[in-house]
């Protein structure tokens, strides 16, 4: 099978899965199985692409010309191969989990849910493999629009206003900042293709660089840097599978991935270092890390707490991109994998707790640890990975990021990262402590839902095991920046 056909197949698979889910909408089991099958197919293709990138193969396909200098092209960059692997492998887990959750929680409109879920994955994969900035932008918008029905799934007034906020912030920022920035880059350079070392060198005026970076980081609202972060906590009204896969993996990672791609393949880290135009962003990212960690502590709702934790972790990646040193960018790329794995585990657990015990608040978890040992153990594994404790995979990316900040001699940033880890320990492990130490006075009825328990257990164990196999990822991470 030729490489370009493989790419098209990979991108089309989620769409085909969506189509089949629609056709089999009257048979619930068959309908839901297409998510898993689609996930397996895309995972195989993503793995093939991932290995191909390791051995310097080229995956590229051009469909048609859009306008002067810009084609509708898919081309896999090393960074893209990482993102697609993460998205497709976690899609399988999420599909299994979705079945358990949606049925357990008795949600309506499950067919619509499954279909838009698959379309969102399609958009995320296309973002990962896009060959230029405009194609990336197109699928960035498709991702927003396709996740809107998922966020507003419950169709009550709360989810409707959350959906509006979600859409207006994400689409609004992309049209006001991101698209003009894309036009600007095109007008100055005549191209939008991703190239090693970037396309702006000697073409884009140095004095406007900081402004361009600002347009990009605020235009890519999915990266959720403060003050453009309000949509993420609002989106938590969605059913948990959405929060898990989309708002811990696909959507937010698409945001930071887009920003990272722009820095690495459009702006060029060297050019960024020359002009020092992203130093201000280092401080904004640090501010976001600290501020959202502190907000997370105050949140009693488990999902809201995780949402603020996500905002903080996303800024790690923006921080890495803004530092622009080789190690920092590698750390940021690696953090896409590690945070995705850790955070999806935590969200899975939060949803599983909701389905089995109907509890949303941290303070009500008293004594639940002994009742739901598997879920709490999985949660602990995920939390430890995000905190960055060895031997969990999350420790690698944090290590790289700290090294990257020292490489740029930003000692203060390294300190911030350390302090943030301490805060992580507090707000992520507090639910575990409450669950295992305090005792519950009133018994509650538990509903068994094995399909929501095993996915987090698997991803949690993955956080631990992959620590020892990190070489596998480091290969491609090293290729991101040469």
């Amino acid at each position: 099978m030729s490489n370009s056909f493989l790419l098209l197949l990979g991108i089309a698979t989620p769409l085909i899965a969506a189509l089949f889910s629609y056709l089999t909408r009257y048979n619930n089991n068959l309908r839901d199985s297409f998510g898993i099958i689609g996930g397996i197919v895309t995972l195989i293709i993503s793995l093939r692409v991932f290995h191909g990138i390791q051995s310097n193969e080229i995956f590229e396909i051009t469909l048609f010309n859009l306008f002067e200098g810009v084609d509708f092209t898919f081309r896999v960059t090393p960074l893209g191969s990482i993102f697609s692997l993460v998205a497709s492998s976690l899609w399988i887990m999420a599909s299994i989990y979705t079945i358990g959750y949606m049925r357990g929680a008795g949600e309506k409109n499950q067919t619509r849910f499954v279909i838009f879920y698959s379309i969102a994955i399609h958009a995320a994969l296309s973002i990962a493999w896009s060959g230029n900035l405009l194609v990336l932008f197109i699928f960035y918008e498709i991702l927003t629009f396709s996740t809107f029905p998922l966020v507003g799934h419950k169709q009550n007034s709360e989810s409707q206003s959350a959906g509006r906020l979600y859409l207006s912030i994400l689409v609004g920022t992309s049209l006001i900042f991101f698209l003009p920035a894309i036009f600007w880059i095109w007008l100055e350079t005549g191209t939008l293709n991703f190239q090693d070392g970037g396309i702006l060198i000697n073409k884009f005026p140095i004095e406007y660089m900081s402004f361009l970076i600002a347009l990009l980081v605020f235009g890519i609202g999915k990266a959720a840097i403060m003050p453009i972060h309000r949509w993420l906590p609002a989106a938590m009204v969605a059913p948990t599978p959405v929060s898990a896969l989309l708002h811990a993996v696909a959507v937010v990672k698409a945001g930071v991935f887009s920003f990272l791609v722009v820095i690495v393949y459009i702006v060029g880290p060297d050019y960024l270092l020359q002009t020092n135009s992203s130093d201000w962003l280092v401080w904004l990212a640090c501010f976001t890390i600290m501020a959202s960690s502190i907000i997370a502590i105050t949140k009693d709702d488990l999902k809201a707490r995780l949402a603020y934790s996500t905002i903080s972790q996303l800024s790690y990646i923006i921080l890495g991109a803004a530092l622009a040193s080789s190690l920092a960018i590698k750390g940021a790329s690696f953090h896409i994998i590690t945070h995705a794995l850790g955070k999806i585990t935590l969200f899975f657990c939060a949803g599983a707790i909701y389905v089995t015990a109907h509890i949303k608040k941290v303070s009500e978890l008293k004594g639940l640890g002994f009742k739901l040992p598997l879920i709490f153990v999985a949660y602990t594994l995920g939390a430890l990975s995000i905190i960055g404790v060895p031997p969990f995979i999350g420790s690698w990316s944090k290590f790289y990021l700290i090294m990257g900040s020292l490489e740029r001699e930003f000692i203060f940033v390294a300190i911030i990262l350390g302090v943030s880890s301490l805060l992580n320990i507090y707000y992520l492990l507090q639910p575990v402590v409450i669950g295992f130490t305090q005792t519950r006075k009133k018994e509650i009825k538990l509903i068994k839902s094995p399909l929501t328990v095993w996915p987090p257990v698997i991803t949690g164990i993955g956080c631990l095991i992959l620590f020892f196999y990190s070489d596998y990822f480091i290969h491609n991470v090293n290729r991101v920046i040469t």
Partner: protein
Amino acid sequence: MFDLFLDDAPALVVVLPLIASAIIAFMPSKIWPWIISMIVLVFHLALSLHLIEEVSISKIIIYEFGNWEPPWGISFKIDGVNSGLQILFSSFVLISTFYSRKIFLNEIEAEDTGKAYSLWLLAIGSLNGIILTNDIFNLFVFLEISALASISLISLGAGLNRKALLAAFNYLIIGAIGATFYVIGAGFAYAMTGTLNMNDLIIQLSQYSDGQLAIFAGMSFMLIGLMVKAAIFPLHIWLPAAYSYAPSAVSTLLAALATKTILYFFARLLFEVFIIYENYLIIFLDFILFPLSVIAIFIGTLIAVYQDDIKKLLAFSSIAQIGYITLAFSLRDHSGITSGFVHIFNHALIKGGLFMSVGYFAILYKDRVTLSSIKGFGYKYPITSFALLICGLSLIGLPLTNGFISKLYLFQALYINQMYIPIASVALSSALAVVYFWKIVEQMWFSDIKPKPEKEDPSIYFPIWIITISIILFGIYSSPIIEFSTLSADYLTQGLQK
């Protein structure tokens, strides 16, 4: 014999609909007026295609009526500037006439069908005259015919809502004021130069190279008159009511083509004739048209956000979109004029598609289409709703639709001219477009009711989908529109210094 027929093609594209209009005016049948209109318009399209072929060879066709040589007789001119517009016009009127049959059947009294199509063809013939004429007084005649035809068509909407009469009356008064301004200006020009022919006017005006207050006054009168007719902010007051209370088919025709043809003539007058007084032109464009356009973009979009009636919402969005076009023209260079023409094409398609879909909803709902009345329509009428969605995304200007191409060229033109504040206002306005358009989408797909699908009429959704597909097609393969627009700009920038 047939060649003889083709030789008169420039006249026939205007005269044919006018003659047919007289024939069907008193036809009692419900179906024959439509059939005759369709036949005439198929010929119309064939003639237009023939004209384009001719122009591509000979570059310019001057057609003299009755063999009276200009500047004495009336003449039509077809060149690079209007050939693209002629094709757009011809194809769009054919599609919208096809669409109009069921709509008229539902919205007006059966015995009025003949009259409606008579007026319809009258409007088409005279609007086409505006595109082709090379004579400033002849333009006034066509302006008046088209205005009277459109006003009568709008008033046919009175069967559904009496406010249509008020809207028609307002249009009549304001339109008459605009036309009067224009004809006073043309009178000044005639008094000073003794000519009405545009090519001759260029020669005569260049002899009055300086001064001549009367000519400046005449130019100002003409421009203001046209600004009223083209609904350029703040002279747009007649437009929202006229578009929204007209029968649905009529609003489609008006929204897609009526203002566009006048905008085209506006550009032609500015850059072909008035360019002789460059200082005057610069003052007009930089200090009047430019700020007005930026304000129009902003105000139009902002008002649209607060509309409950969907046709009104689209009408206010039109005012903003006309602002895009005049903003592009006010840059007075090649990139600006190109981008203006690109948007004339694209916006005609987008607004046409939107008004067609909403018009269908209007006859299905049998009342004003408001935000609350279209609840669940996405499930009830999926085919039409989906077309509406695509047209709306194009209105916002997302990639892979032709609206994106418009925006791309507008940004490029603004960037070349270093107009950074308008760039920001265009970006902001397209983000606000998401707000008003999404209010529609939310009601259609994400409201609390989810009705079962109902049967839709293929004869209505077929033309809607032709427009919708062309929107995507021209978003991906944009070179036809770009080539025509570049050609228009090439011709119109010959007189410009920079």
